[in-house]
């Protein structure tokens, strides 16, 4: 049987395998505590959801006007960060940005975790989740909500395929090299490595389908966030009646996705001792990428607000005043300044692209991105085109209840738990791709 060069003994290959497989067999106390904390948060969220099921959506602060609350803001945020998968597995890969190779699997894992929890949070938002299947059975394809259901399923499937395809050779390495693990893990490695022996034919097929999916994921990823933006732009509310909303959402999602990768990189390189692979140079690259994506988002931000703010027409004007000077002004300007402008300015400088500043700035961007979704959803809903008359006082304001916060926090904990589980199960950096890169880099030298 013809073996591929990758499997041949090589000091580099041996070191890479040793470094990147090490965490699969370790079981650190800190890791267990982290998982315990996440499960505790999820349990609190489940209790809050039990109360919501028991007493209905009345336990939330959502009422007739603000009918989409923090759940939908969170859903949009999670969909946004799921776009990171396409950024690394497709856009950077197709543009031959080889520096991003160590980040592809992290991005795919984050994408899957985020999109799974986004799907769950949308069901949480339903008053009668037991009727969810009616959406599938009786759904009208004219409805953007059905488009969202379709595209989320499509994106989740392609994300799973992308993760799995790139995992096959590494699963075979795990099958052959990782012995001191639980039986079920060995079973996973054996079954899912599907008789991979690294033959040229297998590599040929792998590259072919990997390329196919890399191309295919771009329109699907753009569609998922564009369709999410259409949920808003096809609804009759001030602030949403914008043709800019699709690219605005996509650019914001790419920025949030890059920020979440940086945060993940920082903690993974410490927790798994991978500073050699997730090095400072990678942070520098990510910083430059994040500046570029943030500038694009800033451009769309200006587009989004300049027109309505210039004209100040009717309820659109009231909405702008509410954001710029009203009760949401504090949050709005914090988001714009600390979640967008300040990170851009700092990351322009080389010292701002070092790991720790990048971590802080990325957190700021992520917080800004979450609150930006809050600002997109809530103030618009509080300005219906019909005048508010003789309504209950609770209709006029929206302050999420503890149940909403608990469920929202649980969704974040669930994202982190899925990421943690997948990271502990699989090599977090694609071993075979690093080997391939090393070989392709060394070949010209050999000549």
């Amino acid at each position, binding site marked *: *049987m013809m073996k591929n060069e990758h499997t041949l003994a090589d000091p580099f290959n041996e070191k890479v395998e040793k470094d990147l497989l090490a965490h699969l067999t370790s079981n650190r106390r800190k890791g267990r505590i982290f998982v315990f904390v996440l499960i505790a948060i999820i349990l609190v969220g489940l209790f809050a959801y039990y109360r919501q099921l028991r007493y209905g959506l009345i336990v939330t602060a959502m009422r007739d006007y603000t009918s989409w609350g923090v759940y939908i803001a969170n859903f949009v945020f999670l969909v946004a960060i799921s776009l990171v998968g396409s950024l690394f597995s497709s856009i950077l890969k197709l543009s031959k940005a080889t520096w991003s190779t160590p980040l592809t699997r992290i991005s795919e894992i984050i994408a899957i975790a985020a999109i799974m929890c986004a799907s769950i949070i949308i069901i949480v938002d339903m008053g009668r989740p037991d009727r969810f299947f009616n959406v599938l059975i009786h759904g009208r*394809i004219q409805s953007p909500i059905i488009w969202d259901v*379709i595209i989320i399923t499509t994106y989740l499937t392609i994300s799973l*395929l992308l993760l799995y395809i790139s995992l*096959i050779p590494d699963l075979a390495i795990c099958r052959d090299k990782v012995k001191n693990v639980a039986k079920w893990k060995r079973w996973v490695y054996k079954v899912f490595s599907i*008789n991979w022996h690294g033959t040229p*034919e297998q590599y040929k097929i792998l590259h072919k*389908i990997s390329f196919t999916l890399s191309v295919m994921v771009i329109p699907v990823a753009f569609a998922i966030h564009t369709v999410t933006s259409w949920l808003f732009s096809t609804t009759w509310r001030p602030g949403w009646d914008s043709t800019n909303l699709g690219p605005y959402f996509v650019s914001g999602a790419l920025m949030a996705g890059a920020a979440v990768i940086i945060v993940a990189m920082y903690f993974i390189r410490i927790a798994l001792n991978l500073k050699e692979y997730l090095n400072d140079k990678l942070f520098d690259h990510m910083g430059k990428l994040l500046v570029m994506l943030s500038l694009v988002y800033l451009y769309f931000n200006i587009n989004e607000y300049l027109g309505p703010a210039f004209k100040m027409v009717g309820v659109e004007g009231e909405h702008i005043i509410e954001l710029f000077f009203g009760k949401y002004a504090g949050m709005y300007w914090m988001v714009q300044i600390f979640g967008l402008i300040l990170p851009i300015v700092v990351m322009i400088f080389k010292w701002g692209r070092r790991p720790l500043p990048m971590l802080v700035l990325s957190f700021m961007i992520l917080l800004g991105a979450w609150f930006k979704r809050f600002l997109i959803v809530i103030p618009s809903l509080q300005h219906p085109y019909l005048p508010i008359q003789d309504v209950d006082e609770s209709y006029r304001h929206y302050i999420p209840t503890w149940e909403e916060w608990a469920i929202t926090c649980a969704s974040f904990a669930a994202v982190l738990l899925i990421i943690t589980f997948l990271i502990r199960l699989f090599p977090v950096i694609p071993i075979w791709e690093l080997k391939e890169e090393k070989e392709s880099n060394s070949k010209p030298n050999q000549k």
Partner: protein
Amino acid sequence: MNNLFKYILFGFMALIFATGDISAQGKKTTRLQVEYYKNHDKMEMLIATLIAKERRYVPLAGAMIRFYSVNDTSKALLEELVTNDEGKVVLKINDNSKIFYDPSGIMTFEVEYGGNSSYKSVQRQISVKRANLDVFFFQKDSIKSIEVNASEIGPDNLITPIQGLHVRFYIKGTFSLLDIGKEKTDQYGNARIDFPVYMPGDTAGVIKIVVKIEDDDDYGTIESRGEINWGIPVKVIKKERRGLGDTDAPLWMVYTLIILLSAVWFHYLYVIYMIIKIKLAR
């Protein structure tokens, strides 16, 4: 001084107990509203509404109401009817009803609620003259008008025009009446207003006109109707068989979605097929 205080206190307490005793035994006040109504089919009826004072006046359902026709010397029971949930009861007066008329043609009805252990009895009398209201449509040159003739029916079915009667004109809408004017009848019993030619009718331009004298002291409420095709014909917008607001989506949308999803999901299936090929590859 002490005695005076005792007497005042005693008197005050006696008043409280006495009042309590009275209120416990007292019956609740009732009210009866009676209306004479003649509809566009010339059906005459008496509509009685019984209300009782609880915290506020509320309809009294299930109460027996007796209707009598009376004159100076006689009183004949017409019918006994039970009030509905709205406290209402309708007596239809037909040819077999034994109605007394006075020499000037006035009918007098007595409507009575006998009361019970909880509610006081109440009765009302109502006197009306019989009258007719007829609608006609006229066109002179380009002017179109609606005319109403109001006439009184005397003791020997003698018809005489009613002068000075306020008549209201309406267009019958789907859910309510649209007020288009009011006019007083002349010496011939006629009242006329211009026809609202600017109003939309049905697909043939037909407009239904309703004329009424309302709660008149002498004649009660009388209604009459007429219809004519002088309105603007309304074009019926053909309902799209498939549209964004329909149950079925527009075909272009269905085809677009099928093509796009098929393209994407075909590639997924292709990838799965290739994964199987990887498994089988040597």
